[in-house]
């Protein structure tokens, strides 16, 4: 937590160092592969393995990780990959998460992707604030 806020401060004060630092870990973590669409890219990290296994037996095994986890909008797409990439490398350096959770932005991204692919299916029903697609379709992406 304190590391988090400390790092936040660094972000503002010393962008140069940060870029250098994240650049290093980014490489160290084979982060460059993060920009690829191949799910193999995601399991360079142990923390991703459960998700990968679960994804492999899910109804969406034909949909890549990025198919859900990266915005599919011409402009935002690359920015998001970069942002998420930096977040990843930072986390990898300082953090040791006990339980992975979607960040609020991560949730919005996924939800948008559900709708992107299923818009036609949904055309005849109302969308509902207060519930996310995956509140009902628990584990579509990863058959937990």
């Amino acid at each position, binding site marked *: 937590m304190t590391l988090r806020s400390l790092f936040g401060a660094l972000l503002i004060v010393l962008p140069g160092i940060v870029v250098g630092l994240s650049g290093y870990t980014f490489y160290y973590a084979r982060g460059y592969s993060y920009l690829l669409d191949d799910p193999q890219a995601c399991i360079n990290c142990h923390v991703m393995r459960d998700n990968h296994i679960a994804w492999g037996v899910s109804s969406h095994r034909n949909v890549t990780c990025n198919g859900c986890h990266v915005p599919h909008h011409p402009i935002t797409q690359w920015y998001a990959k970069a942002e998420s990439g930096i977040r990843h490398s930072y986390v990898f350096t300082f953090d040791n998460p006990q339980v992975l959770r979607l960040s609020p932005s991560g949730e919005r991204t996924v939800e948008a992707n559900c709708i992107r692919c299923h818009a036609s299916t949904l055309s*005849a029903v109302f*969308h509902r*604030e207060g519930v996310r697609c995956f509140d009902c379709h628990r584990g579509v992406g990863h058959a937990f």
Partner: protein
Amino acid sequence: FERQQEARLMYLKITDIPEGEPDPAVWKVNFPRQYEAYLKTMRTSEMIQYSRWGRYGGSEAFSKLDKHPNYVRLFAGHPFSVDYREETGHMFTLRDMLASQRLGDQKPGACMACKSSHVPNFVRQYGAETLYKTPVKELVEQHGFKHPVSCADCHNAQTMELQITRVTFAEAMSRRGIDLSTATRQEMRSYVCAQCHSEYYFKGKDRYLTFPWDKGLSVDSIAAYYDAYGFSDWTHAESKAPMVKIQHPEFELWSTGLHARANVSCADCHMPYRSEGGIKVTDHWIRTPLANLTNACLTCHRQSEQEMRERVLQMQDRTYSLLTRAEHAIISAIDGVKAALAAGATDADLKEARRLHRQAQVRWDFISAENSMGFHSSQEAARMLGDAIDYARQAELEAYKVLTRRGMRTQRSSYPINDRNNP
């Protein structure tokens, strides 16, 4: 931006539906899928057929008084001891209300409040007070009420969005400081049901339809509300206790449960989505989810249908065993009070016993009248039945203490307990 594109409902608009249109056939033109499903609520599965799925619900309007002979004594002196049935589908709401021998043809307009899609228009035109005062007979014969619960009760005809059409609910919620205009769509998926599937009483001599929620939705808050207000529906014919009849507190019980905590609405289970040719629609065949477990439960719960059914039945069987225990305890209490009366006890002697009888039966009735046999909030249902048993046995004890304090003599032995748990 996906949201807007999504929030808009895409359908083929063939005709303009006037707001509050009571006749579902008019809505059918634009929404054949929902209309056809809605008609299915006329299907009454006999118990034999229903028993393939469950034990405590279903759509057969059998008499609860035949199934539970004790109910005649428990409601002694109240119309419910005359005619009391299992409820059935929405298409029958009006027919069943008219046919019921409760209050015969003396039914006040308030009885119409939750039974017909003519209500929204009528209330808009004449106001709620008028509805409640006008006899049901008159509403049918002079105002042509002929449709049961239908589209107009839940939908805005222009946008098709859900809307509250019953003032009772709006008033009760605002007294609790809840602003319905800020309700999310997910909340509306329960609120539309709560307009009718809630405990109610008729306030004052004008019979103003009211929900007793000012102190909260729990059975204890509701009982406390009635006590503070000094309200009673009737005086028990045998024990002479001032009683309250509870009716279908589905919304209240659900509110105390885990699904409510988890933001799961009535419609999620009773109107799950169905995909027809890859297109999702809301299933308007409102009924027991046990007949439709795949759509009702399995998207969220990835166990088997079999497993989900067993979970429900296990919870319901537990509730039922306590409900039966409480039933026997209350009958014993009534017998105790009668024994004391027979032995010459005075009203003053029996004041406490009667207070306890009232407290016991309110809690027992909360689960007896609720329609999920405890499923909507399984532990809370068991908790209040435990309280009911305690109050009932204490009522019986009070009666005996009257006797012992006076050294009176009685021979009766108490009500036999026939119960699987009794070794």
